C-alpha cells in the first residue's frame, strides 16, 4: 500500500499543458529522487502535491496520500494534511524564512498551526527539533533571527519547520542547490538521518544525478512534463535505457575536447613580454566594516589576504572555494573594480592601474544569465559595450561587423543582434555574455560561475564552446566555480581558496586526486559522487 500515488495527474496553466499523465507511487519510508532539467516539471509536481499550484492552473487525475485524494479535498482539509503529514523544503534558504521573525517563532508557528498544544509545549518541541536538525539551543537560541545565520544554518531551520510534526512525507525541492559543496554534504546527511530516524518518505528533487544517486531508493526521470523513466535507482542508473537518461549522464560528466591553443593567437600575447599573462602578487583587498556601536571605530575586513598566483597565456586555471571565501572580491580586483589595499596585479607585466588599454586584456562572464544584461538594450549594443575601453572607438559599421562575426563565433545568428535579451534562453544568454567578453579580443576571460546556473546538457555545449574559443582566440581562462567536477574537466591548474587565502595550488588532476591541505581534502570529500555501478554504465556510453 503506497503512501503517495499519482494517478494520471495532469496540470495545465492557462491551457498550456505543464504536466502530462504522471503515474508514480512512493512507499512509506522510501526515498524517491526526481531528476530532470529546468522546465521539466519537477517543481510543478511538488507544488501539485502540496496544492500550491499558481493561479489559473487546472489539475486532472488523482493525488492519493494515505488513501485520501488530496486534490478533491477542501482547502481547509488539505491545509490540515499539508504541513502536518507532508512537509516541504524549498531551494532558497535566503528567502524561505521571514526576516522579521525569530527562528523559534517560525518553527513554533508551524507546530501550533497544526496541533492544539500549549505555547510552552510547542516551544519545547521547536527547540528539540532545531537541535535534531543540528542547531542546538545553547549555541542557536530560539531568539536568533534568520540574518544571523548562514545559508546552511537557515536551510536547517527550514528543514526543522518541515519535520517538526514528524510528517510521513517530506518533499525537498533542490534543497542544496544554493549551498556550497561542504554545506551540501552536511544538509544531505541531515536529511538522510532524519529520514531514517522518523522512517519518513522523502521526495528529493534535484538536477544533480550524484546527489540523487547517493540518497534515493527509486528514481523518476522527467522531461517536458512527462515521466520518461522510473524505477529502482540501480537498474535505472546502470541500464540507462531511455535516451534522455543516457543524455543526462553523458552531459553531467562532459569533458570538452581540448586542443593546444592556436600558436599564432598565442604569439600576440606572449611575444610582448616574458612575464605571465596575469600576475597577482601579495594582493590584499579590504572592506571597511562599520563598528557595532554608533561611535566605535570601523574595522577592516581582509576579503583577500596576501594572495599570489599567476595565469599564463592560453592556460585554464580553476579557482575553487566556498561562498564568502573572497572569490568574488578577488575577481573584482582583477577586473579593476575594487581598490587594492596592497600588493600588485600585473597584466603582461603592466600594472592594471596604468590605464584602460591594460584592462581590455581582461573580460568577464558572470553567473546569472538573467541579471547580467540591461533588459532595455538590444543585443548588438550589449555586446559592443566593452569596446568602450578601446582608445579609438570603431566606426559604427566596423562595430556592427565585429558584433555579427562574434555572434557567429559563439554559435548564434547575425539576426540576433536586433533582439532584446528576454527573447533568449539561459544558455543563449551565456553565449551572448561570452560574445560580450570576446569583443575586445582579450587574452584572459574570468568565468565567474559562468556555467553554474545552466542545465547539464546546456552546460556541456557552453563548455565545448569555451574550449573551442580558447583554441581559436588563444584565450586563458580563470574559471571560478564551486563545482569541482566541472573544474576537473576543463582546467589545467587549480587554486584553492579559504577565507581570503590561497591554501593550495597545482596541477588540477593531482590537487583533486591527492589533496594535501585539509581544507581541500574536506572539499573533495564533500563532492557527491555517482556510485560505482553508474560509473561503469557511463564508461560504456
Amino acid at each position, binding site marked *: 500500500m503506497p503512501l503517495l500515488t499519482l494517478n494520471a495527474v495532469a496540470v495545465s496553466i492557462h491551457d498550456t499543458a505543464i504536466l502530462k499523465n504522471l503515474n508514480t507511487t512512493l512507499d512509506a519510508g522510501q526515498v524517491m529522487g526526481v531528476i530532470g532539467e529546468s522546465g521539466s516539471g519537477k517543481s510543478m509536481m511538488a507544488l501539485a502535491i502540496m496544492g500550491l499550484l499558481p493561479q489559473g492552473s487546472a489539475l486532472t487525475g488523482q493525488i492519493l496520500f494515505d488513501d485520501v485524494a488530496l486534490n478533491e479535498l477542501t482547502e481547509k482539509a488539505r491545509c490540515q494534511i499539508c504541513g502536518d503529514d507532508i512537509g516541504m523544503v524549498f531551494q532558497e534558504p535566503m528567502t524561505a524564512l521571514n526576516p522579521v521573525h525569530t527562528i523559534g517563532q517560525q518553527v513554533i508557528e508551524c507546530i501550533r498551526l497544526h496541533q492544539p498544544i500549549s505555547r510552552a509545549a510547542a516551544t519545547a518541541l521547536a527547540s528539540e527539533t532545531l537541535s535534531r536538525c543540528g542547531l542546538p539551543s545553547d549555541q542557536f537560541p530560539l531568539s536568533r533571527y534568520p540574518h544571523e545565520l548562514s545559508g546552511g544554518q537557515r536551510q536547517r531551520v527550514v528543514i526543522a519547520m518541515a519535520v517538526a510534526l514528524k510528517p510521513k512525507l517530506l518533499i525537498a525541492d533542490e534543497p542544496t542547490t544554493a549551498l556550497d559543496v561542504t554545506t551540501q554534504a552536511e544538509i544531505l546527511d541531515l536529511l538522510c538521518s532524519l529520514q531514517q530516524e522518523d522512517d519518513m518518505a522523502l521526495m528529493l528533487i534535484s538536477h544533480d544525478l550524484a546527489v540523487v544517486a547517493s540518497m534515493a531508493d527509486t528514481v523518476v526521470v522527467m522531461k517536458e512534463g512527462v515521466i520518461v523513466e522510473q524505477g529502482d535507482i540501480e537498474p535505472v542508473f546502470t541500464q540507462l535505457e531511455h535516451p534522455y537518461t543516457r543524455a543526462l549522464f553523458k552531459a553531467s560528466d562532459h569533458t570538452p575536447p581540448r586542443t593546444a591553443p592556436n600558436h599564432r593567437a598565442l604569439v600576440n600575447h606572449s611575444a610582448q613580454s616574458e612575464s605571465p599573462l596575469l600576475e597577482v602578487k601579495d594582493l590584499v583587498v579590504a572592506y571597511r566594516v562599520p563598528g557595532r556601536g554608533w561611535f566605535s571605530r570601523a574595522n577592516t575586513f581582509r576579503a583577500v589576504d596576501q594572495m599570489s598566483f599567476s595565469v599564463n597565456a592560453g592556460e585554464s586555471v580553476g579557482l575553487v572555494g566556498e561562498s564568502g571565501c573572497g572569490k568574488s572580491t578577488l575577481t573584482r580586483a582583477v577586473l579593476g573594480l575594487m581598490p587594492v589595499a596592497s600588493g600588485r596585479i600585473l597584466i603582461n607585466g603592466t600594472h592594471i592601474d596604468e590605464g584602460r588599454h591594460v584592462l581590455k586584456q581582461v573580460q568577464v562572464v*558572470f553567473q546569472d544569465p538573467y*541579471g*547580467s544584461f*540591461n*533588459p532595455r538594450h538590444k543585443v548588438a549594443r550589449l555586446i559592443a559595450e566593452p569596446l*568602450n575601453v578601446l582608445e579609438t572607438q570603431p566606426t559604427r559599421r566596423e562595430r556592427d561587423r565585429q558584433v555579427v562575426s562574434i555572434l557567429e563565433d559563439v554559435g548564434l545568428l547575425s539576426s540576433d543582434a536586433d533582439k532584446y535579451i528576454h527573447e533568449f534562453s539561459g544558455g543563449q544568454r551565456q553565449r551572448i555574455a561570452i560574445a560580450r567578453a570576446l569583443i575586445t579580443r582579450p587574452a584572459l576571460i574570468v568565468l565567474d560561475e559562468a556555467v553554474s546556473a545552466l542545465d547539464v546538457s546546456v552546460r556541456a555545449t557552453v563548455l565545448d564552446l569555451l574550449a573551442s574559443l580558447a583554441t581559436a582566440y588563444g584565450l586563458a581562462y580563470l574559471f571560478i566555480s564551486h563545482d569541482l567536477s566541472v573544474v576537473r574537466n576543463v582546467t589545467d591548474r587549480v587554486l584553492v581558496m579559504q577565507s581570503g587565502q590561497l591554501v593550495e595550488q597545482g596541477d588540477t588532476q593531482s590537487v583533486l586526486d591527492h589533496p594535501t591541505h585539509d581544507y581541500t581534502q574536506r572539499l573533495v570529500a564533500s563532492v557527491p559522487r555517482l556510485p560505482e555501478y553508474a560509473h561503469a554504465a557511463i564508461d560504456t556510453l
Partner: protein
Amino acid sequence: MAATTKSRFRNLVPGAVLVCIFFGAAVLSFFYTPFDVEKFNIAQRMLRPDAVHWLGTDHFGRDILSMLMVGARTSLAVAFVAVSIGIVVGVPLGLMAASYRGRWLDELIMRGNDLVFAFPALVIAIMITAVFGPSAVNAIIAIGIFNIPVFARLTRGAALGIWNREFILAARVAGKNSVRISVEHILPNILNLLIVQGTIQFSLGILAEAGLSYVGLGAQPPTPSWGRMLADSQTLTNLAPHLALFPGMVIVLSVLGLNLLGDGLRDWLDPRLRRE
C-alpha cells in the same frame, strides 16, 4: 492573448481619452471659446445649462464651458511646468545620490530632501506669495519645489536596486564611469517608474494649483482657473449648484484620467510585458 491585450489597455485607453479631452480643450481655447470669458453679462447670470450655454453661466453671466476651457490652460500649464521642475532637478539629484551611495554627497542630497519634505507645501506657497505676490508663476515655483524631493527620493531608491545588478558590473568592466552608467543603464531601467510618478505628480499638481487658486494664491482674476471657480461658487451653492459641480467634476476627471494614464503607460512601456 486577446484577454490579456484587453486588460493591458484597460487603464491606458480611458486615461488617454480623458487626458486628450482636457489637453484638446486647453489648446482649442487659444483659438476658440463659445463665449468671451472676460466679458460680463449680468442679464444672463446664473443660467442653468441650456442649448446656448451648455454648462450654464456664472454670477457675472460668463459662460462656464468657456471658463473651464481657459481654466484647463492654467491648470495644465502650472502642473506641467511644476512636474518638469521636479524631474529636471530631482532625477539628476537622485541619480547622483545613488552613484555616491553611502558617501557624504548622498547624505547631503537626501538630508536636503528631508528638509524640503519637512515644510508643508501650502505654508511655503503662502510664504512665496507673501514675498513675491500671488500669481500663476509663483504657484508653479511653489509646487515645483515640492516635486523635487519626490523625484529625487524615488530615483535614488530605484537606482540603488539597479546598481546592484550584474549588468552594471559588466558596464564598469567596460570602463564606463558613473555618469555614463547612470544615463545609459540606470535611467532607462527606472523610466517607467518615473513616468508613473510623473503622471501622479501631474495630477497632484492640478489639485495643488486648484487649492492655491481656491485660497487666492494662484492665478489672479480675470484669468479663469478651476480652483477660483470653485471658490467663487461657494456662497451660491444653494442657488446655483452647477457653478460648483462642473469645475469640481473637471478636477476629479482630469486627476482620474492622469492616474489611469500613468498605470496604463507603465504596463505598456515595459518590454518584459511586451513579448508576444
